[in-house]
């Protein structure tokens, strides 16, 4: 570990690795710091990702993919299942452990230095517009002096807080999530299932994502206000007992997912936040891998440009925000509006809708139609929704 790097990336998830990769590619000296002992572990993710979402970065490696997803099923509160075949593209359930690890290897191949067991304790601004990063590396206090800090440190983003960026999430938008990796179940290996309704997951949804060979990620997110009365764990245990009583649980993982609007200004002088740290999460699905990778890529590019320009100011880094806006944050803003409408639906309304949709001929059932039906009460949103899900 050197004492000086142009750029320090805090966090070794997909966002951090992409940032390190692209900053290195741009010619900067880069150091990636991961607090845990393993890059890629623990996994806190349902691990599903669209085909295009991943192919826009890399051709997917077979070792990254646990299951090919060809169709999805949404189960309404009354038990009516809507089956939606994917037409234009498929999706994947990933092995995030392998995937994240490989991304960090790619970053190191571009020249980034990668360190695990590196816990950042604080950051301190120097007079010459550089920053000192104080960290605990294998129990020893180290100081790295750097020009740009990229916070890829997840939902709690301490880097963001230290930089004075408001990172705290409103409870209204916070989802309490829990997931089990289960074995010993019989499921369609190419279909993801989503259960909606107050019975299974109030203010959120429950997912069953197959991972091949009778295994799956089964998890749920519930609105934090519901979690107060009955915990996410209790909801999940009830579902498993009822639907997959023979399932064996091999991993338990928890997490909070901010299904909020994307942060409007995830930058400050010398600082950029990417991925979950910037609340770059699809507010309906809670998915964030692609947005983390995209924002990481943009942040890495802009960071290396700022090193060349010797300008680390907020004004220069603003380019990063504009790149994100064009690519996905504007879309996330719209999805947030749709979420607000969908959230108002009662179980009864959702059940009636499922019956209505199922009367359509199979080839006419698409995800966009499901959402369009869901927001019929506010027709002006339909066009946005159709655009949003045009990829499916």
């Amino acid at each position, binding site marked *: 570990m050197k004492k000086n790097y142009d750029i320090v990336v805090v966090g070794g998830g997909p966002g951090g690795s992409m940032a390190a990769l692209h900053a290195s590619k741009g010619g900067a000296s880069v150091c990636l710091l991961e*607090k*845990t*002992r393993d890059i890629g572990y*623990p996994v*806190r993710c349902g691990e599903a990702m669209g085909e295009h979402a991943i192919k826009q970065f890399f051709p997917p490696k077979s070792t990254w993919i646990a299951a090919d997803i060809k169709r999805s099923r949404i189960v309404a509160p009354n038990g009516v299942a809507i089956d939606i075949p994917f037409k234009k593209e498929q999706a994947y359930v990933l092995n995030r452990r392998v995937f994240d690890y490989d991304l960090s290897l790619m970053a190191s191949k571009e020249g980034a230095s990668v360190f695990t*067991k590196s*816990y950042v304790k604080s950051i301190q601004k120097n007079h010459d517009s550089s920053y000192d990063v104080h960290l605990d590396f294998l129990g020893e206090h180290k100081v790295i002096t750097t020009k740009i800090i990229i916070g890829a440190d*997840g*939902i*709690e983003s*301490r880097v963001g*807080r230290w930089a004075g960026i408001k*990172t*705290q*999430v409103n*409870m209204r938008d*916070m989802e*309490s*999530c*829990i997931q089990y990796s289960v074995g010993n179940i019989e499921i369609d290996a190419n279909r993801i299932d989503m259960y909606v309704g107050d019975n299974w997951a109030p203010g959120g949804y429950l997912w069953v994502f197959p991972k091949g060979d009778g295994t799956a990620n089964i998890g749920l997110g519930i609105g*934090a*206000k519901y*979690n*107060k009365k009955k*915990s*996410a*764990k209790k909801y999940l245990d009830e579902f498993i007992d009822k639907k997959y009583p023979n399932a064996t649980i091999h991993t*338990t*993982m*928890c*997490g*909070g997912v*901010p299904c909020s609007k994307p942060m409007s200004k995830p930058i400050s002088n010398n600082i950029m936040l990417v991925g979950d740290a910037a609340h770059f999460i699809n507010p309906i699905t809670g998915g964030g891998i692609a947005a983390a990778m995209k924002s990481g890529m943009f942040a890495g590019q802009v960071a290396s440009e700022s090193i060349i320009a010797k300008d680390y100011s907020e004004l220069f880094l603003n380019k990063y925000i504009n790149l994100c806006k064009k690519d996905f944050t504007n879309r996330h803003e719209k999805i947030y509006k749709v979420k607000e409408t969908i959230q108002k639906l009662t179980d009864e309304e959702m059940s009636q809708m499922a019956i209505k949709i199922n009367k359509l001929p199979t080839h006419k059932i698409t995800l966009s139609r499901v959402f369009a039906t869901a927001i019929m009460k506010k027709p002006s949103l339909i066009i946005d929704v159709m655009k949003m899900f045009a990829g499916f």
Partner: protein
Amino acid sequence: MINIKEYRCDFCTACVTVCPPDCIEVREASIEIDNEICIDCDLCIYVCPIEVLSSDEKKL
């Protein structure tokens, strides 16, 4: 005063995300709450998916 069942904790940082005074520190396998700074708002208790946290009042 927030009580922590540390053996139950997954160190997922959901609590850190909602904490207004930023008094919770979660590392790879540890969680600490600075009770000097804590304002007893209980938001961390509400958000925790696996009931790691509880407040003193609930014990009474």
